[in-house]
């Protein structure tokens, strides 16, 4: 049974995805137990903290609605700063959830099963946090519906040739599809909770949302097809969303924004920041809720590998941008980049480089890749770095424009800061509610990747009557052989 203690990937031999859970029922117990047991004091403390920060956001937004966007530190030269930085930051974080749920699903990466649910929830809450910026930046929030093409008596329409309108379509589609995908995934697990419910109220509420799911194989057949299709739709969608977000900049003619590398560069950055956020959240959640057997070191290590890859891609993009600024020979473009690295915002530029490009390089070392404290610190660095990346792109390109007399230095106002910090309150309030009231791990999907789920495993030793004893014996005695066959399957799938 060497496989049982192995928690990391070594070439040719893969670690099991589920540790310390002897049978299917144990998985149900672990995940459903979190939702069913009494609220813990630590959750209450964290939740109160999150709600207090959320109140800061509501206060800041209330002030903004009352006084107008003049309360932000924006000026004629720097007309976009922390607001759009916060918007792109949150949207980017959301993208890892879709990547895990859709792209890794299409690539048959079975390890995604224990993290996809939480990552998808993260996507939805991150998109909510992102959504407040464009909505409140319109200033007169009660006219926010003008963003949508709604017929009116003046025959006036939003400009369909503008990337900002494309953004409206991309973000609203992304939010909708993410919610649909998440809910489709939740239905079988809600049915599990329904069937375990002890009180009538729970049974009715969960029953309504579980839609009467009963695990019929005819239903599973259509369900799995629907899941595959949604994954297939979400994959190009997530790439398109950040591409369109990057168009907000790339389609303009500002030096420093007007570059064709933006779409792939933004998508890589989004995945990079999102995975960092998933690692930060999962490291805490698995500890707090005893999910170490489901979210193993192998899962975390795989995510760290993705952080390393995307971090390096982002670093390549930074370097290539700079190279093209020189090679392109455009005076203004050249100045924009010299100003980024050596101008008044050089501190932000080099923070970005250190956090995004240098710090993930430590993940080349297996010791660091598999160390919980190290990966937690690096993931926080990446989150900080990715915020700075957007800030650098947006503010340094704007603050010294074509006329030196209008050059300025942007300083955030108190309300810039409180709005951004407050958005974390929004995110964490919802995320904590999710962890408390919904299954944080996809129960049915995790069961499906357990060695015992393979219907062809150990076919021959099922001839005697004592099935109950055998089910547990299966995983402890002949577990090694099962693991091997499951590993081979995965090896093939991974090509």
């Amino acid at each position, binding site marked *: 049974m060497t496989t049982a203690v192995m928690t990391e990937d070594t070439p040719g031999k893969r670690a099991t995805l589920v540790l310390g859970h002897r049978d*299917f029922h144990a998985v*149900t117990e672990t995940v459903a137990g979190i939702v069913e047991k009494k609220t813990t004091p630590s959750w209450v403390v964290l939740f109160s903290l999150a709600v207090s920060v959320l109140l800061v956001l509501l206060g800041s937004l209330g002030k903004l609605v009352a006084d107008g966007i003049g309360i932000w530190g924006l000026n004629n030269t720097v007309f976009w700063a922390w607001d759009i930085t916060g918007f792109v930051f949150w949207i980017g974080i959301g993208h890892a959830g879709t990547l895990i749920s859709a792209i890794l699903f299409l690539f048959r990466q079975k390890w995604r099963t224990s993290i996809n649910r939480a990552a998808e929830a993260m996507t939805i809450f991150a998109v909510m946090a992102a959504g407040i910026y464009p909505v409140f930046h319109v200033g007169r929030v009660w006219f926010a519906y003008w963003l949508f*093409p709604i017929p009116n008596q003046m*025959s*006036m*329409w939003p*400009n*369909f*040739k503008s*990337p900002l*309108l*494309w953004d409206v*379509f991309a973000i609203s*589609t992304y939010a*909708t*599809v993410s919610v*649909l995908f998440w*809910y*489709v995934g939740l239905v*079988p697990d809600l049915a*599990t909770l*329904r*069937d*375990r419910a002890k009180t009538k109220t729970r049974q009715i509420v969960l*029953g309504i949302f579980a*839609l*009467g*799911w*009963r*695990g*019929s*194989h*005819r239903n*599973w*057949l*259509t*369900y*799995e*097809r*629907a899941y595959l*299709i*949604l994954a297939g*739709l979400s994959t*190009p*969608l997530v790439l*398109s969303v950040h591409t369109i977000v990057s168009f907000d900049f790339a389609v303009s003619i500002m030096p420093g924004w007007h570059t064709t590398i933006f779409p792939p560069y933004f998508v890589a950055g989004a995945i990079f920041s999102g995975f960092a956020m998933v690692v930060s959240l999962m490291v805490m959640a698995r500890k707090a809720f005893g999910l170490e057997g489901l979210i193993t070191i192998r899962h975390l290590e795989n995510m760290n590998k993705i952080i390393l890859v995307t971090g390096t891609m982002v670093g390549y993009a930074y370097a290539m941008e700079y190279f093209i600024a020189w090679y392109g020979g455009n005076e203004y473009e050249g100045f924009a980049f010299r100003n980024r690295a050596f101008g008044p915002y050089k501190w932000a530029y080099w923070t970005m480089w250190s956090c995004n490009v240098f710090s993930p390089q430590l993940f080349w070392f297996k010791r660091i890749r598999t160390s919980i404290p190290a990966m937690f610190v690096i993931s926080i660095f990446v989150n900080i770095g990715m915020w700075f990346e957007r800030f650098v792109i947006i503010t340094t390109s704007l603050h010294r424009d074509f006329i030196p007399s209008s050059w300025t230095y942007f300083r955030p106002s108190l309300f810039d800061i409180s709005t951004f910090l407050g958005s974390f309150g929004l995110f964490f309030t919802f995320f904590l509610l999710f962890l408390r009231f919904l299954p944080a791990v996809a129960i049915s999907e995790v*069961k499906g990747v357990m060695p*015992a*789920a*393979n*219907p062809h*495993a*150990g*076919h021959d030793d*099922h001839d005697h*009557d004592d*099935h109950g004893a*055998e*089910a547990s014996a*299966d995983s402890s005695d002949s577990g090694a052989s099962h693991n091997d066959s499951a590993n081979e399957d995965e090896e093939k799938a991974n090509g």
Partner: protein
Amino acid sequence: MDEPHRKDEHEQKAYAVMGYFLTPGELMRACEKLNAAGYKHFDAQTPFPVHGLERAMGLPPAKLPWVVLICGALGLLSATALTYYVSVDYPLTISGKPDFSYQAYIPVMFELTVLFAAFGTFFGVWAMNKLPMYSHPTMSHPSFPRATDDAFFITVEARDPKYHKVRTKGFLEELGAREVLEVME
């Protein structure tokens, strides 16, 4: 296993005979046997999709992709119609380019295609599965809650021509199913 004690059993119509296994392997074998014995209307209730079961049960592939294709095409059409209408209704002439400069509308067309297709998938999957259906005869099996936990149920429906209360029950028990009971509609 004893018959469930129901006062009005003789008045109710039987829906199916139901039993369960503890491993997907046994369920798979039972489905193969039922299929070979000529049963058509039987189903499995499992906590997770057991892959390959549809072959053992002799089920055709799901038809959902067609719904999605139609919805996606509808999305593309609506986006084309919308962008065409707004560019003719209130033309914005920029650099003398045509009113309907479709190149600029591709993002909108793409997003609406995906949106409609996703809605088609979402509503299609529930419609095809006849959900929501809050009460189903199979849920009356006393061990049914385990179907979403760790038991692999098999249900042979009464409308199957080969259905026979005693013989079908005996057949399932022979295959190793536990708690084989008749559930009522």
